[in-house]
């Protein structure tokens, strides 16, 4: 019995790392641009396909193609921002959430339909030589491809924190997220900050997609499921701390996994939503968020 629990703790933490990685980009776009991009999961899906096709056609190992996926999705983020979200960030901050919801939901439908048309609805997984390898500790198995996903998530969060806290550009990003008007008055080109922050958000979704196509699978309709998990993670963690996002992701993965063992598989999602409601009512600013007026 304890064997089963240990194994589910491990797989919960591993999938939780993915939740955290997906949520990083969503939190960045929400915190800085004040837009809610529900098509974040579709960006993830595209990143997953990029890694998959780079592997299938060019034989590129998913870890080798990771920078490529980052660059491709960064570029795609630039296009999406300039064609769609630029018009949302021109509006007042308090109207951006509803406008971005409408626009990004449209984007969800378009990208899903295009993915079915061009990539077919088949589920794809990158199967490398090491895909089935696992580290065994006692009787607990840790699949290396999923462990690698967790490592990528942690490294991405630390790099993002470094960018935000230790660089000039990062200071401009934090100032913009606190108050874009005063950031502009400090000489910050706010539109450029928005563009780059959104592109980084898309690139992070791409990294997540890459790791998901390796450790899990991609298909045209996986997006919304991951977006929902990421939304829960962002609310759990609150804004302001990127490593807090990863911790909240792990927490969510763990809760789901243990609920599945103790209460039965059908309670996996229920437990996640109950956790979400509890945190929302006790600590509305999130577990790691700063409450400032």
């Amino acid at each position, binding site marked *: 019995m304890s064997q089963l629990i240990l194994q589910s703790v491990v797989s919960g933490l591993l999938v939780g790392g993915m939740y955290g990685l997906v949520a990083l980009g969503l939190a960045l776009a929400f915190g800085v641009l004040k837009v809610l991009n529900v098509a974040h999961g579709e960006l993830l899906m595209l990143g997953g396909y990029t890694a998959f096709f780079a592997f299938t056609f060019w034989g590129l190992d998913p870890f080798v193609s990771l920078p490529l996926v980052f660059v491709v999705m960064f570029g795609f983020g630039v296009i999406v921002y300039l064609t769609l979200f630029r018009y949302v960030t021109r509006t007042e901050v308090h109207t951006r959430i509803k406008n971005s919801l409408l626009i990004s939901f449209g984007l969800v439908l378009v990208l899903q339909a295009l993915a079915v048309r061009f990539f077919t609805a088949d589920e794809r997984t990158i199967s490398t030589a090491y895909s089935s390898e696992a580290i065994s500790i006692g009787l607990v198995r840790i699949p290396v491809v999923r462990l690698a996903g967790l490592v990528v998530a942690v490294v991405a969060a630390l790099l993002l924190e470094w960018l935000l806290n230790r660089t*000039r550009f990062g*200071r*401009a990003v*934090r*100032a913009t997220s*606190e*108050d874009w*008007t*005063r950031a*502009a*008055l*400090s*000489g*910050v*080109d*706010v*539109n450029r900050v928005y563009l780059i922050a959104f592109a980084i958000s898309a690139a992070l979704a791409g990294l997540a997609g890459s790791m998901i196509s390796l450790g899990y699978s991609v298909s045209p309709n996986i997006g919304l499921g991951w977006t929902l998990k990421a939304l829960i993670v962002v609310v759990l963690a609150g804004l*302001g701390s990127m490593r807090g996002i990863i911790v909240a992701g792990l927490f969510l993965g763990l809760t789901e996994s243990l609920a599945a063992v103790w209460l039965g598989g059908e309670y996996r999602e229920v437990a996640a939503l109950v956790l979400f409601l509890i945190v929302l009512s006790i600590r509305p600013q999130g577990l790691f968020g*700063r409450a*400032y007026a």
Partner: protein
Amino acid sequence: MLRVEGLEVAYGDLQVVWGASFEVPGESIVTILGPNGAGKTTTLLALMGLLPVVAGSVTFNGVSLVGVPTHQIVERGLVLIPEERAAFATLTVEENLDLGAYTPRARHSREQKMSEVLELFPRLAERMRQRAGTLSGGERQMLAIGKALMARPEVLILDEPSLGLAPIIVEHTFEAIEKVRDRGVSVLLVEQHVEMALQIADHAYVLDMGSIVADGTSSELSADARVQDAYLSL
């Protein structure tokens, strides 16, 4: 240096400023006085490119600023300290000052400006690693002015710097404004604290209902009984 002529500004359909004209010459303190809702802050936001100019002209060193994005106006040397909470609460004092020198023009002189600011406000030096949100009202005011000076302004614009501050801190703030002017920076001061503003200003304008209704040197306006009664007595 800064010349505004026939400025008209509107929030959507609601026009607030109706043809304001004024001028800030080099190395002087100019103040715009007037009651609440006269359009003072609106005028400043339009100068900085944060509200669209409906009509009229804004020229700075002979170049028009109408339609120029805010960050480029800052780069050219026009720096506004907005009303209240000008510094970023979530950034440390040092980060706020660094952010002040964000424009390419100010970046190169960051070190030199930093020591000038810390000399002007030694208190900030003790608070460098603290978040600005934890500062007292007076310290936050010093930080706001210090951050603006980091941008190497040619004209420093202050919107109601005395708002919500204790009298002694208001006095310190006004002393600092005079020191800034003595260092060769022109100052445009929007104030409701009429008496103190007139004491340090070289020239004053009175704005009411979106138009300039009186102007003159500080002593002229102080002596003008009509202006005093209508606009300047609080």
